[in-house]
C-alpha cells in the first residue's frame, strides 16, 4: 500500500489554501477577460432582479435568486469551453443563461412549464436539478463517458454548501477521483441551506478540505471575486481535460436574498449579516478594480447596463403570458413507445386536445 508515499508527496497539493484565493486588488487585470466578466455580472444582476420582480407579478411560480452569487455563476459559465458540460442546480439558472441559454428557457421549470425548458444536448447544460447533490454523479458519469470515448470534454458540477452533506456528494467525488474523471465540483458556499447555517452543516475547517478525503485537490476561493473564481475553475478544468482528474472548489459567497421568493429569511438571520456581505458585493468590487486600472469607461459601463436592460425587457416579454401547454402531452415522453396501459389512459383522457404523439 502506498499510504505513506501518497501522504508525503501529494498532501501539500491536495489541501486548500488557508486564505481564500483572491485576484481583485492583488493581480494585474486581464484586459480581455475582466471586462467580459464585468458585462456578464451586470447582466446577471439585472437578470436576478428581473426574475425576482416576475415572481411578484405571478409570472414565475418560484425563483431561487442568485443575487450576491453572480460572480460564481458567471465565472462558472465563462470558464467552460463550448464542448464542456454544465450541471446546474435550481439556483444556477444564471450560469445557464450566461452560457447562452435563453432566459425564458432557463426559467421554464420555475414558471410552471415542462420540467426542462431546453434541450440539454443542444446547450450542453444538464437539466436544472432539484434533489440535492443528485446531479453530481451524473456529472461524473458523463465526464467518464466522454473520456472513454476520447472526447476533449470537461464537466463542471455545481452544488450548494448544504448539498455537500448528502451521500450523493460523497459518492460522486469518490467515483470521480477513482476514475480520474474530467470533472470539477464547484461548491457555492453561500452560508445557508434555506434556514440552516454552515455551522450546523459541517464542522470541517472548510468544505474544500473534504477534497483530500477523496485524493483530489481542494481549492478555496473568494466567491465574490469573479476573476479569482474564473481563474481557479479554468485551472481545474484544464487539469481535468489534461487527464489530471477532478478538483473540488469551494467558493465563499453569500445568498443576499431569501432562499426563494417564498422564503422569509428574517425568521433565521440578522440583517447585519446581510449588510456585511452586501459590502462585499461582487459587482462594485470588480467595477472599482476595472476603473482603477482604466479598463472601464463610462461608455462601456453604460453599454453593459443597456445590454442588461435589453435582457430584462426580453425576459419580461417572453414571460408576459403563460406558456401554452397541451394537456394531452401529459402522456408524451414517459417512454419511447408508450405502454398499452398508457395508451389506454391517454385515449380515455378528456382533458384537452393536441400535443406530441
Amino acid at each position: 500500500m502506498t499510504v505513506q508515499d501518497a501522504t508525503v508527496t501529494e498532501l501539500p497539493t491536495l489541501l486548500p489554501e488557508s486564505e481564500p484565493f483572491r485576484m481583485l486588488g492583488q493581480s494585474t487585470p486581464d484586459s480581455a477577460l475582466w471586462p467580459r466578466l464585468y458585462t456578464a455580472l451586470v447582466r446577471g444582476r439585472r437578470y436576478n432582479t428581473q426574475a425576482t420582480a416576475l415572481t411578484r407579478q405571478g409570472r414565475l411560480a418560484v425563483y431561487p435568486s442568485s443575487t450576491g452569487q453572480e460572480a460564481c455563476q458567471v465565472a462558472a459559465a465563462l470558464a467552460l469551453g463550448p464542448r464542456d458540460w454544465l450541471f446546474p442546480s435550481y439556483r444556477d439558472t444564471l450560469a445557464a443563461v450566461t452560457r447562452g441559454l435563453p432566459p425564458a428557457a432557463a426559467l421554464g421549470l420555475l414558471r410552471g412549464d415542462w420540467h426542462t425548458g431546453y434541450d440539454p444536448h443542444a446547450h450542453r447544460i444538464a437539466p436544472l436539478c432539484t434533489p440535492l447533490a443528485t446531479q453530481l454523479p451524473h456529472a461524473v458519469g458523463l465526464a467518464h463517458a466522454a473520456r472513454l470515448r476520447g472526447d476533449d470534454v470537461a464537466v463542471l458540477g455545481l452544488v450548494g454548501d448544504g448539498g455537500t452533506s448528502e451521500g450523493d456528494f460523497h459518492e460522486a467525488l469518490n467515483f470521480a477521483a477513482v476514475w480520474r474523471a474530467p470533472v470539477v465540483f464547484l461548491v457555492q458556499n453561500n452560508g445557508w441551506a434555506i434556514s440552516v447555517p454552515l455551522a450546523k452543516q459541517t464542522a470541517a475547517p472548510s468544505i474544500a478540505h473534504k477534497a483530500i478525503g477523496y485524493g483530489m485537490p481542494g481549492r478555496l476561493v473568494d466567491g465574490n471575486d469573479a476573476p479569482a473564481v474564473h481563474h481557479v475553475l479554468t485551472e481545474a478544468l484544464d487539469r481535468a481535460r489534461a487527464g489530471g482528474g477532478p478538483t473540488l472548489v469551494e467558493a465563499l459567497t453569500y445568498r443576499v436574498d431569501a432562499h426563494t421568493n417564498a422564503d422569509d429569511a428574517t425568521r433565521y438571520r440578522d440583517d447585519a449579516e446581510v449588510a456585511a456581505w452586501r459590502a462585499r458585493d461582487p459587482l462594485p468590487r470588480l467595477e472599482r478594480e476595472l476603473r482603477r486600472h482604466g479598463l472601464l469607461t463610462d461608455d462601456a459601463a453604460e453599454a453593459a447596463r443597456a445590454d442588461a436592460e435589453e435582457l430584462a425587457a426580453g425576459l419580461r416579454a417572453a414571460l408576459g403570458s403563460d406558456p401554452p401547454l397541451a394537456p394531452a402531452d401529459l402522456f408524451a415522453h414517459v417512454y419511447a413507445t408508450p405502454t398499452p396501459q398508457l395508451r389506454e389512459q391517454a385515449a380515455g383522457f378528456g382533458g384537452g386536445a393536441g400535443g406530441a404523439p
Partner: protein
Amino acid sequence: MTVPMAQALNRALRDALAEDPDVHLLGEDIGALGGVFRVTDGLAAEFGENRCTDTPLAEAGILGTAAGMAMYGLRPVVEMQFDAFAYPAFEQLVSHVARMRNRTRGAVPMPLTVRVPYGGGIGGVEHHSDSSETYYMATPGLHVVTPATVADAYGLLRQAIASDDPVVFLEPKRLYWTKGELDGRVAPFGRAAVRRTGADATLLTYGPALPVCLAAADAAREQGWDLGVVDLRTLVPFDDETVCAEVSRTGRAVVVHEAAGFAGPGAEIAARVTERCFHHLRAPVLRVTGFDIPYPPPLLEHHHLPDADRILAAVARLQWDLV
C-alpha cells in the same frame, strides 16, 4: 376550535413534546424557520434545539440517526421536507426501520414517526408533488397513516408518536391550509371513517382526495346517484370491516387517489375488497387515480389530479343497467 391542518399538526407535536421528554423532532429547517410548511413553528423556541433539531442536509442520515436514537429509547419524529426527498432515506426505512423489531425478536422496537408532506395540487415544481404511499404500503413493518381532516391530523399524529412501531405519516400538502374543527382527541389506528353514507355506490379514498370525493358525491346527487364516501385514514393497518360493510351494502365501489394507478394503493384496495365482497359486487371496483406518468408540471397538474368529473365518469361506468 377551528384551525388549519398545519396548525393542528403543530399542536400535536407540541403536546407530544410537552408530555413525553423522549419525543425529539429532527429535520431540515424545522428549527428557526419552523419548517417550510410551518408545522414546527415555535417548537425549537419552546423546547430548545435538542428537542427540535435542524440537522445537516442528508435524509438517510436523518432517518438513520433517528433509528439510533430510537434504539436508545427515544421517540424521534422525523420531518422529510417533501415526498421525493424521502427517497434518499429509503434503504434506512426499508432495511432497518421497518424491520428492526422483527430483526431483534422484539428486543429493539422503533417508536419512530416519519412525517412526509405528500401529493400535489400546490403548484410545486418537479419532485415536490409525489404521492409515494405505495412504496410504504408495500413494506411490511410500517404503519402508513394519512389524515384528511383537521381533527385526524391532530389525533392520528398523536397516535403515531405514541405508537411503538414506525409510522409513515403522510400529510396532504394541499390540505395544510384547510380549516376544520380541532377536538384534541387521539385517534386509534385501523379504523376507517364513513364520511358520508350512500345507497348507490361507495367512494373509497384518503388524504388529499377526500374533499374531492365529497364534492363528487354532492355533484352526483344531481345525477340521481347517492354516493357514500369512506375515508380510510390508515392504509396500514387496513380497515376491511368498515370498507366491506359499506361496499357490500352498495355493491359498487370506486377507489380514488392521487398516486399513479398502476400498482398503486387502489390496486390493493380493489383487490382486497373484491376478494371479500365478490358476490355483493354488481360491477368491478374501479379506480380513479393519477395517471401512470411522472408528476406533471404545475400548469398541467389539475388535469392529472382526480376531479369530480373523472369520479362521476367512473361511477357512470359501474354498470347501472345491470341493477
